[in-house]
């Protein structure tokens, strides 16, 4: 089951695909660039009553009310104060628009087939269903997220970083 998203990556478009990469606590992640609507500097959000902790609130994106998720908290990582590098990556998930708070964005990465590895078996404690695979780029290792699964139904945080 875990390798289904990986097959998706390989079967779609024979060429390469582009991922926007960003950092979370020293680790590098990527989301498919086609799903990224825009990148915004962090600005104050309005907290949602009785929402899970990773749901930081809602923001006004040109008249639309958009929820903002803190990916660190979503992945069960340590909380980090927002600074001038903190960025909200606005992604499209189906018809929904969602903002993701990340530490900082790095670059846009071309991922060739050969650079792509299936997600290694990280043990039972790690839910790899939210991964599309892992990309190698020189000495970088970038975890490619399946954004639909990350921002699916709001549910308990996913244990990704141990």
């Amino acid at each position, binding site marked *: 089951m875990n390798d289904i998203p990986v097959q998706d990556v390989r079967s779609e478009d024979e060429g390469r695909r582009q991922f926007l990469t960003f950092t979370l606590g020293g680790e590098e992640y990527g989301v498919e660039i086609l799903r990224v609507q825009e990148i915004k500097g962090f600005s104050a*959000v309005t907290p*949602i009553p*009785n929402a899970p902790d990773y749901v930081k609130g809602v923001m*006004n994106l040109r*008249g639309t009310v958009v*929820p903002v998720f803190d990916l660190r908290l979503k992945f069960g990582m340590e909380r980090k104060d927002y600074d001038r590098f903190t960025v909200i990556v606005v992604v499209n998930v189906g018809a929904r*628009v969602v903002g993701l708070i990340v530490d900082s964005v790095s670059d846009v990465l071309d991922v060739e087939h050969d650079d792509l590895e299936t997600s290694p078996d990280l043990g039972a404690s790690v839910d790899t269903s939210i991964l599309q695979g892992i990309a190698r780029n020189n000495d970088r290792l970038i975890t490619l997220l399946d954004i639909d699964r990350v921002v699916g139904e709001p549910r308990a945080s996913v244990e990704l970083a141990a």
Partner: protein
Amino acid sequence: MQIDLKKFQETFFEEAAEHLSTMESGLLHLEESGSDNEFLNTIFRAAHSIKGAAGSFDFKEIVRLTHVMENVLDKLRSNLLAPTADLTQILLRASDRLREVVDATHRGEAGSVPIDDILPELEAVLNGGQPSEAPVADAAAPPGVPRGEVVYAVVFEPELEFFRQGQDLFLLLRELGELGEILSSECQRSRLPALDELDPEHCYLGWKVRVRTARAAQELRDVFMFVEGACRLEVTAEAVTAAPEASAAGAVRTERRAAADRRVESTSIRVSTEKVDGLINLVGELVISQAMVNQAVAALAMTPELEEALMVVQRSTRELQEQVMAIRMLPIGTVFNRFPRLVHDLTVKLGKRARLDIEGAETELDKSVIEQLGDPLTHLIRNSIDHGIEDPEQRALAGKPEEGVITLRAYHEGGTVVIEVADDGKGLDRERIRAKALAQGLIRADQPMTDEEVNGLIFAAGFSTAAVVSDVSGRGVGMDVVKRNVESLNGAISVHSTPGKGSRIRIRLPLTLAILDGLSVQLGRDTFIVPLLSIRQSVRPEPSDIKTVLGGRGEVFVLRGEPLPLVRLSRLFGVAGAVEDPQQGIVVVTENDGHRFGVLVDDVLGQLQVVVKSIERNYRKVEAVMGATILGDGRVAFIVDVAELHRVATRRKSPEEDGRSADGAAAAPLQEEVA
């Protein structure tokens, strides 16, 4: 890179539909206007435009058909052909066929509609100068019945009451026409009475329509499926040799002309509500950005020019918003107009006499509000006739005219719309209402009540005073449902009554669901909006106003001797840093469904109009919140759903409380204590 043609194609289909309408209405006037060039030119241009655009998408069939039509029209234009009835008929059928071909192409089924039968007809006209014989006859001649087509005679005789049931003959006949080709249609007038005996609301006519079709007889019957009980219907297969009548499709065409006339008169366009909502959103955004610009600029050194320019921008923005909101507005007459009939039928049924006066039918309201007004108003009018208006004899005894008057009135009042249903009947019987409410345990015997409060009891759930339960009203449902309907539209309802003089129900509604009048309140560092319609008053409480009950498990706010449950909004919403001491805050008294609550907030910031935005669209439903809005400084604020707030608050007094009271019912006895 491939260019996405889809978008352009969509435009083509939209335009083609318009051109087809133009063409059809033009053709229907062709006979009358003779060879009036302006008409012909219009039709010609329509055909030509379709042809040109279809060519660029390579829709071959559309091009072929329009090309020949264009040639015929061209000859008409240059007087080489005369616009006879037969010729018009051919062109009309050609444009019908063209519409089918365009529709099929739109569905991605190009080629599914044949045009090979209509093309020769048009070409024959071109070659012969005049159609040598009735072309319809041509088409229906026995050799021309291909592919197992059969000619059916459909005899359709609606019963007298047919129109009263709201049926539309034209739709049925047109639907029949879509199943095949109508060879002839004969109107049967045998039932038509003498003029002085004629009831204009009765249907005396019948039709015999001959249809050539490849469909089964059952499919023809299915057209009349919904009027089965209300007509006599015969569908018989005919010998295919029958000669067609000369006046082909006469009746249908007359109807069509009427329809086309209606279309021409209308100067409106149809736009999807989605587009309108998009526009409203965008303008709402513009209003907010404009306010932000004003705020930002206020800090700068203003020049008179800048000040002037900002004023103009502000004014235009406001006007733009009003205009855009007006797009969704419809006159309330669209719903009022169905009631004269209801009043007529009910009075006849109940042996009473009453007429309906309508005032302010042109008052405009948001389409979505209007759509939800039909049911509550129907209830109210039924009630007025059933309970309000007396029998003619009683009225005569009371010195009133025998004919009662029910007045349905709508008008604007300070940014809201007021709708009144008034009657000059006997008024509410407050003694009976009290007695009934007492019997049902809705009130206590010693409870002091004002007249207004007694009147208000009719809105209590399950309340009905009708001495006889009729099938018109008085089933014990009604007024409470009406009240709920009105409240779901963010509206309020009240009743006024004078014994012997009549009663008046007043419904106050916001102009639109997209904009809401609210009170902005502060909780910690956040701002929330409470809908103004649910607010009765705001009070800064004295120490003696707040009491605890059940050993501190519940809190009560005492308003002029009346204990109300107190809801700490900050605890319910889990907002940090809010006021803990009630005397440092403000209690906003909210009312829903007759129940009043005290809602504790830090401060009241002011009254404002907000544009309601959906949270569910990108997130999910948030409890006790009906939506969000964007404040003048660009921040998002949540709008409190008062009805749900009351429900949630009675379920659990506060989050901490949740854990403590395992039975969860702790709040219920509390309510009884204070009610």
